[in-house]
């Protein structure tokens, strides 16, 4: 790992390892894990679907063709058609956007808020820590789907509300991970060295502690994202997610229930999409852990 060594005598301060080199190193570590690589590739494919979905999809997701309803998979409709004659393949492609938008934004919000709570709680400790942690315990003690239903039932299932619900549900987990990292890091000698120098709390928190808590935080965030896919799909299935006719995967499964005997593809393909994305995300986050924290664990 001596990529940085450029002891050219001409320049007194040698150049540092560039960001590109660091990324290449991470890339090499990832490629050594074939399973994680596969997971990452699948994840990226879904991500591209979410971004470019409407342009890739062969048909519009709302495009109905009653004569072609409930067709089994053919070359024209690789995943078949649904009860309105809409192309299931196109609806899955376009539906990825909703999952990423809700789950992804919700997770990011949860990470931002959970990290703040975890940092403050772990670093300052005392009464504040006690209060924050007990509040999170309350959130954790209610089954998450139930809590989501209650919240959405109260405020109504708008896009913003869905995102907020995902965020609220995952704040406790993120906060706990961050807090435990902070508790461990704040007794480390380099943090004490900073206190000895008289650094401000903000410097200690954001420059000394947070960067070292990032790898586990990223891993936790990717795990949370994979859970949020389930959550968003479940809410869609229960009719509390994005409202029809949007191509939400959970909603599609719900609609497919009535046609299970005649048109199982209506249910099979959205379900497959959900599990593929969840499994791929999990594989990726496993790989991420090994890339960011090599040698930390061996599983």
């Amino acid at each position, binding site marked *: 790992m001596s990529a*940085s060594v450029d*002891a050219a005598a001409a320049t*007194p301060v040698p*150049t540092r390892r560039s960001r590109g080199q660091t990324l290449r190193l991470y890339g090499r570590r990832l490629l050594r894990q074939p399973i994680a690589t596969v997971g990452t590739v699948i994840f990226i494919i879904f991500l591209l679907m979410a971004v470019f979905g409407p342009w890739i999809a062969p048909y519009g997701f709302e495009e109905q063709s009653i004569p072609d309803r409930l067709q089994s998979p053919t070359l024209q409709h690789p995943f078949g058609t649904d009860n309105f004659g809409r192309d299931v393949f196109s609806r899955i492609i376009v539906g990825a956007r909703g999952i990423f938008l809700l789950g992804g934004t919700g997770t990011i919000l949860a990470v931002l808020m959970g990290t703040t709570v975890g940092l403050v709680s772990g670093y300052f400790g005392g009464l504040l820590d006690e209060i924050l942690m007990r509040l999170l315990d309350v959130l954790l003690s209610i089954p998450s789907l139930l809590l989501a239903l209650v919240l959405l039932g109260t405020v109504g299932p708008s896009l913003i509300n869905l995102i907020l619900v995902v965020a609220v549900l995952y704040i406790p987990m993120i906060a706990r991970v961050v807090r435990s990292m902070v508790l461990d890091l704040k007794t480390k*000698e*380099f943090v004490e*060295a900073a206190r*000895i120098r008289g650094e401000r709390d903000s410097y200690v928190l954001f420059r000394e502690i947070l960067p070292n808590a990032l790898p586990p935080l990223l891993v936790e965030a990717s795990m949370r994202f994979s859970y949020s896919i389930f959550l968003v799909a479940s809410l869609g299935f229960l009719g509390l997610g994005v409202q029809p006719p949007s191509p939400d995967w959970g909603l599609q499964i719900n609609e497919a229930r009535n046609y299970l005997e005649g048109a199982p593809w209506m249910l099979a393909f959205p379900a497959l999409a959900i599990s593929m994305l969840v499994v791929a995300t999990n594989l990726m986050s496993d790989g991420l852990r090994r890339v960011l924290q090599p040698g930390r664990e061996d599983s």
Partner: protein
Amino acid sequence: MAASAETAPGREGRTVLEIEGLSVAYRTEEGDIFPVRDVSLTIAKGESFGLVGESGSGKSTLAMGAIRYLPANGRVTSGRVLLRGEDLLSLSDKEMRNVWGSRIAVVYQSPGNALNPSIRTGNQIAEVARIHLGMSKQEAHQRMLEMLEKVKMPDPESVARRYPHQLSGGMLQRCVVAQAMMTNPELLILDEPTTALDVTTQAVVLDLVAELKQEFDSAILYITHDLGVVARVCDRVGVMYAGEFMEQGGIHDLFKRPLHPYTLNLLGCVPHFSLGPRRKTLNTIPGFIPRLDELPEGCIFAPRCSLAEPECRVAQPPLVRAAEDHLTACRRWPVVPTPAEHMATITADLMQARGAAENRLLEARDVKKYYPVPTQGPFRQDKRKVKSVDGMTVWIDEGRTLGLVGESGSGKTTLARTIIGLVEPTEGTISLRGEILGPTTRSRERDVLRRIQMVFQNPDASLNPRQTVGQSIGRPLTLFGTPRHEVPRRVLELLEAVHLSPSYYHRLPSELSGGEKQRVAIARAFAAEPDLILCDEPIASLDVSVQGSLMNLLTTLQAEKGTSYLFISHDLSAVQHLSDWVCVAYLGYAMEWGDAGDVLNPPYHPYTEALLSAIPIPDPDVIQKNIRLEGSVPSAVDIPSGCRFHTRCPRFIGDICIQEEPPWREGEGDHWIYCHHTFEALVEMQKETLRLADHDHGTPGVEVQV
């Protein structure tokens, strides 16, 4: 590679273990590496063979390879291992399992991990006899008690009934040894068994190992990095370097007349305990142990060797017999200088910062730090306190070093953390140049904070893993007002001062060795241009050759910058080497304190005396009186009455020690002892405590020459 060792004559028939041309390979991501290459050794019945080397020398791999106990990615690639003539490498796995535990026993570094915490110790020890000797429960129990008796365990019956967490480190290690000896194994492997222990406990365990040789006739393979330990318990030594033997020989021959430059250098790296005022720089070995995937051509030590000639780099020199039972891998062994010559040429008198006036820099007066006892549940308030520091007064003069010595639990680190403001003292004051400082870092002004810096013990945790070396050293500079554009230049100056090249500027801590990290930490401390640096065991976890160079570095920097140090250590040799003043602490209170020369010469406080007789001195000819402290340091919650040391004191008088606090007796010069004995009485008792080998026609007060 043709380094086949010749076995010394006259020991055939008694040979227990014979390793011939053993090579071990590890599979890694970058391909196979060979941490042990073509190594041979023999150990006879009742003999103890010391395997010495720095970390990465392959000493543990050699031992574990020989008994086929390698991790999954390791394998023996060639060689023979004979245990009483039986080739271990040809045994089936099942046969090998029978050999382990019954004919070969291993004791590891950490006794706490070797025992199951949920089974009573006695049952664990007895189990061995039931499995391997087929004894009944009763017989096994009986044998277990005998064994505990043999390892000098006080009150074996009650120890056997206890769980591992209820025993001290020294007692645990004795249990593990007892367990290992249950089957009277032919070969006992001790892998750094005392590294995790305090000096005083280490001494007890080493005595035990020495006695084992008398009690049993097992062959002992003793793995350690500490030459002092080897000198105390081994009959023969093999010095390993990067996977090969550099030298093998009888303990006295090898220490008196090492025939390999590496051994010679290693001996020069450790500060030798001396009673005189004269101090020398320590030997340093340039460069690093080569990486196993890029070994140099020819002699593997040649790149770091001062005696190397061009021929040394051509072919690998074989291990040759230079004298009766003395093998060396140096082709120039006839010209290897004697230790005395060597030390005379490579060391210089220590530059000392003997400056002008004796200005008092820092004073910690009557410092107490009490912690509440952790409560046992919500409704049981425990009013008692853990008295980590219980009324200590120390002061440090400008440009001088105060050495603070004591076992773990003596409160040395807590005192340092109180001085720097990381913990708030319960009572007492800290003053810098007469000005009383705030109790915590938050209550101190920036300029006060700048004046006191700290170097921590654990090199892996003292640098932020996410910041480059340049950022770590540069931060105190920017914080304390160096103009931004000058920071990189100052960082480079500091790197140079700690002997690191500019190429380290952008490296991350994970790319540095332990010694390099500690250098960066020292540079960071000096970046603030402090008046005082607290060094909390900064070298304890490093290899000997690195320790020596860091101690040299600390002394030169002190001489250049006039910085004062508080040097905390459990290692009296290091403290003796670096300090002007010494304070010996026990259970949060000073026992003896004064000028280094006075404290470390008789009369001693009985506690200092015990510490002195416990340090392993790397010279088999030194005579140390056996003064051993039994048991462990008492709990800091219930501090013994009267003199707090009376429960373990080897010079215990009687009721007076239990009932009355001893007076502070003042001796000649600056020397205070906290004891009921008078100075005269102590002098009389302690004549024989430590006699250093006087190779130099000496009265006590002569530098120990190896």
